[in-house]
């Protein structure tokens, strides 16, 4: 496949496309990190949870609701669903070995995937997004409104969450419960509900990622599977312990694989994922905790 001549305009477009990809990975990676920090569990159902809520959005819009009316309804449903999953499926096994809980999340992924096929069928569906796909001129570079919209919504959500975690009493309690449950309990924090709240927030992050990416790809029950792999990679890249790392890792990964796929001839779109994982492997050899993660070393 011969490459077209290099132009800076196209390079800038590729960066923009990479940031858009990355914003989706960042949202999902952040969801993974929020659950991991509080329970040390990787939630393998994160992708299916996101797709499921996106299907709910599709159904609502199919009944005539506009995207922006459906959006907050879906977020509320996602939040309630995340909290319910924690209460019903995770809570009863909270003292079980981590592997047990991981298997439960895998089971949940399969369950949700099956439910989606039963309810909505396995076919690809067109999801009409809120943003137009026409391009506008940004400093001489044509970029689609949709790409800008996806990035703005994703970043806004991350910023809101950051403010919540940093400046509210509940956010502080959530952070405290994640690092030291016993001390938090004795300070009056209801740690069990903090974990449930974490699942609710993670589900909301997934729902937003799903509703943003569905117009770009097609909506089907497996929509998030590859994206979830990239999100895992992004979370590990940033450091599984670090919310900021997940976001930076997501954007970095999105830009890197987009550029590699476009400019390194033999990679193309088929080899993007293995190459991305290889790069992360190399990074982890150098920095085992990820870019922002804390390596568990104590001063003695």
């Amino acid at each position, binding site marked *: 496949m011969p490459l077209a001549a290099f132009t800076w305009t196209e390079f800038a477009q590729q960066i923009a496309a990479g940031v858009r990809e990355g914003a989706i990975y960042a949202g999902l990676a952040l969801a993974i990190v929020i659950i991991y920090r509080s329970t040390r569990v990787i939630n393998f159902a994160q992708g299916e949870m996101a797709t499921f809520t996106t299907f709910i959005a599709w159904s609502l819009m199919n009944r005539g609701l506009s995207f922006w009316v459906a959006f907050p309804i879906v977020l509320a449903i996602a939040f309630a669903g995340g909290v319910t999953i924690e209460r019903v499926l995770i809570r009863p096994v909270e003292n079980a070995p981590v592997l047990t809980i991981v298997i439960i999340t895998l089971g949940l992924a399969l369950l949700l995937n099956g439910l989606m096929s039963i309810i909505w069928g396995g076919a690809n569906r067109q999801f009409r997004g809120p943003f137009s796909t026409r391009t506008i001129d940004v400093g001489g570079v044509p970029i689609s409104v949709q790409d800008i919209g996806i990035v703005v919504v994703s970043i806004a959500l991350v910023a809101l969450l950051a403010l919540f975690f940093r400046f509210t*009493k509940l956010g*502080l*309690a959530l*952070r*405290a419960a994640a*690092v*030291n449950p*016993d*001390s*938090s*309990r*004795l*300070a*009056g*924090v*209801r*740690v069990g509900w903090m974990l449930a709240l974490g699942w609710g927030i993670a589900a909301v992050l997934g729902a937003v990622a799903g509703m943003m990416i569905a117009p770009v790809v097609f909506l089907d029950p497996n929509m998030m599977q590859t994206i979830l792999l990239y999100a895992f990679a992004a979370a590990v890249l940033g450091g599984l312990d670090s919310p900021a790392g997940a976001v930076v890792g997501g954007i970095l990964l999105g830009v890197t694989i987009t550029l590699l796929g476009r400019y390194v001839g033999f990679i193309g779109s088929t080899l993007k994922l293995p190459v991305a994982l290889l790069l992360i492997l190399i990074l982890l050899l150098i920095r085992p905790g990820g870019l922002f993660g*804390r390596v568990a070393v104590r001063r003695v």
Partner: protein
Amino acid sequence: MRRLPLLEVDHVSKRFGGIVALEAVSLNVEAGEIVGLIGPNGAGKTTAFNVITRLYTPDEGDVRFDGDSLLGTPPSAIVRRGIARTFQNVELFRGLSVIDNVRVGAHARQGEESVDDVLFYVNLHSVRHRGASELPYGTQKRVELARALASGPRLLLLDEPAGGLSHDEVERLGTFIRRLRGDFELTILLVEHHMGLVMSVADRVHVLDFGRTIAEGTPAEVQADKAVIEAYLGAPA
């Protein structure tokens, strides 16, 4: 007429499998008292703290605070009853700043006025934005104390406050604990290995060995007690 004790540990037993951590231990703390809880390693002192703060549920017996049983109270509601504690090995919120650690301590309270006051009191106001776990060990212990004080407790449980401190720091700590009681109108139960500190600061001392009470009384009485001397130095051959 004697008033009701603020804290009553009433014939509490706690076993882990075949190991008896506490065996029918009874211990009263009157309002305003400083009581020392001492004993050799493994005597059950920290277990007693964990039972009082509801991290453990006793197998037998009852724990009453202000006359009411604590056994129906979950750990997250203990602080609202007016009980706060520190931990033997400092259990701070790693990655959170000093002030955020103390803010979590005030979680159960309305408003945050207590946070600044407490930070000034324990002399941490100037480092309040530093990461708590980056500070020296002795300073971390003060952060933990500040976190406990910020909840506005009536009963403060201190688990080895002198552990890991230098000789000078331990001397100052004794004075500090007595001042603390007055300034915050506290009742204090103190687990400590440092005998000098316990004997200088406590009104009464309670001695555990292998989960059983072997003596209680004033510091002078306990120091002269034969069972206590044997527990610490070994029985004469």
